[in-house]
């Protein structure tokens, strides 16, 4: 496997995730996109770590996974709150404030 091809794959996954974030209307879909982006980044870290033959990448990836979980936890709590207050979980309907 080539050094750059890993990056390309990761980039692709990242882009898919970003596309998901930008295009999904449902907030859970959005957060899934974000997960995908994180995973792409993790992929890079792990792969590069492997390529360099050091453990740094894997360690960072482990941390990253934990942190992602924390973020998602906060996010899901927030979505519940939104569902309760605004009676919707559509991303584009949450736009009280603008301009």
């Amino acid at each position, binding site marked *: 496997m080539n050094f750059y091809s890993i990056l390309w794959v990761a980039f692709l996954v990242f882009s898919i995730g970003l596309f998901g974030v930008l295009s999904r209307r449902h907030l859970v879909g959005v957060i899934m996109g974000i997960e995908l982006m994180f995973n792409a980044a993790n992929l*890079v870290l792990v792969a590069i770590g492997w390529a360099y033959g050091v453990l740094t990448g894997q360690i960072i990836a482990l941390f990253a996974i934990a*942190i992602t979980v924390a973020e998602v936890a906060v996010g899901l709590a927030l979505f519940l709150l*939104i569902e309760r207050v605004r009676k919707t979980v559509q991303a584009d309907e949450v736009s009280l404030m603008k301009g």
Partner: protein
Amino acid sequence: MFKPLTLEIALTVGMFGIFLLDLFLDRHKKRVLGIFTLLLLIVILGISISKSVYGTAFSGTFVSDSFAVTLKQLFLIATGLAVLGSISHTEKLLIGREGEYYLLLLFSLLGMMITVSARELLLLFVGFELMSIPLYVLSGFDKGNPRSVEGALKIFLFGTVSSALLLLGIGIFFAATGTTAWHTTRALDELNDPLGTLALIILLAGFGFKIAAFPFQFWVPDTYEGAPTPFVAFLSVAPKVAGFGILFRFFFEALEPLASTWTLYAIWLAALTMIVGNLLALPQRNIKRLLAYSGIAHIGYMLLGLASGSKFGLEMSVFYFVAYLFSNMGAFLVAEAVHRATGSDDLDSYTRLYRRAPFLSLAMLVFLLSLGGIPFVIGFWAKLYIFLAAAEAGYIFIVLLGALLTVVALFYYLNVARKMYIDEGSGENSFISLPFDLSISIGICTLAVVLLGLYPKGIVWIAIKAISAFGQSNPIIH
């Protein structure tokens, strides 16, 4: 070996204490938590003055140099002011949740303290997240308020995407250099290949969220509008300074070979941010949104310091942080005070304020003048120094742009002043009485803005000392 970590450890221990206190305190007595928090912050601030906190830990990945300590002191002050402004606030809004509120603030503070000391990307990332996640929660702390929740959603999504980018950036940086710790490998020659530049771009895009420069500023006004105001005062200052802290350290220490590239980015970001921030602030009718956009504009000015690419520029930026901290927090705290009296953030509620609350309106005027860069208050020196730095670096036209935009900014600042002092509309005439804690915090800000405006030399000295941390190895880049 833990000496450099003294502040962080002290904070953590204190947080644990507050956590325990929170568990055992009666619902109605939780107000004491604020005072404890404040005391804790003051103690840590006291410790930070000591020389013993300097040093490195974790084989150099954690550094407590003058730059880090100075910024930490700023964070502590900002947090302290926010806490002081919140003590009487919590009563109304957040019955029984003071513990969470203060702990979250302190967690965020801890994250900031770690980020500005980090010389390693993993540590940086962890600190960054530790700083960010509590902010998401705090933004939505006013659970029943749809605006608050919406603001929280916006900062959360923006922040998370930025985190993902940051992580990707770390990966690419790792790919380009083979390491994530930049204190060991000084010669990062590989950075000059496209991968290095890519890492720079993606990392900057990730950090951009924190400093809220254009085009990362979108979440700012919405979140500010919705979130509890004392927290916004904190949010508008501390994380921004932390973001700049990261940028300064990372760019100057790690990305030095790419200096010509990132100064170019910075100058463009600075120019665009100044323009967009000032222009968008013009039509605002809500004081918090207005201050949000004006804050964005100020980020643009601070970026000029980075863009000048010299130590001089950084010094002047640090000066700017101080000026911005007191002026902006002060303005937000006044907004909080007015909000409590009138229940509104609308500019119209400032009409005839000079009759209803002479001290408050005078303080607001001082803050606005400081933000507008008017002589004899600290904001003027901040603007002047930053322009001086930019002019030194040869950006005379950007300075001209900045100076002209300052005038645009004065338009909306003076509009507030007009509401307070000139307009004689009919309306509430009753005297506004200030809660004790708020008047103290506003008083501190006012004094700082005025006194430091009269004697800026001390801050200049502190700034020079802070930046001396980047000392030896960094030639002034032109």
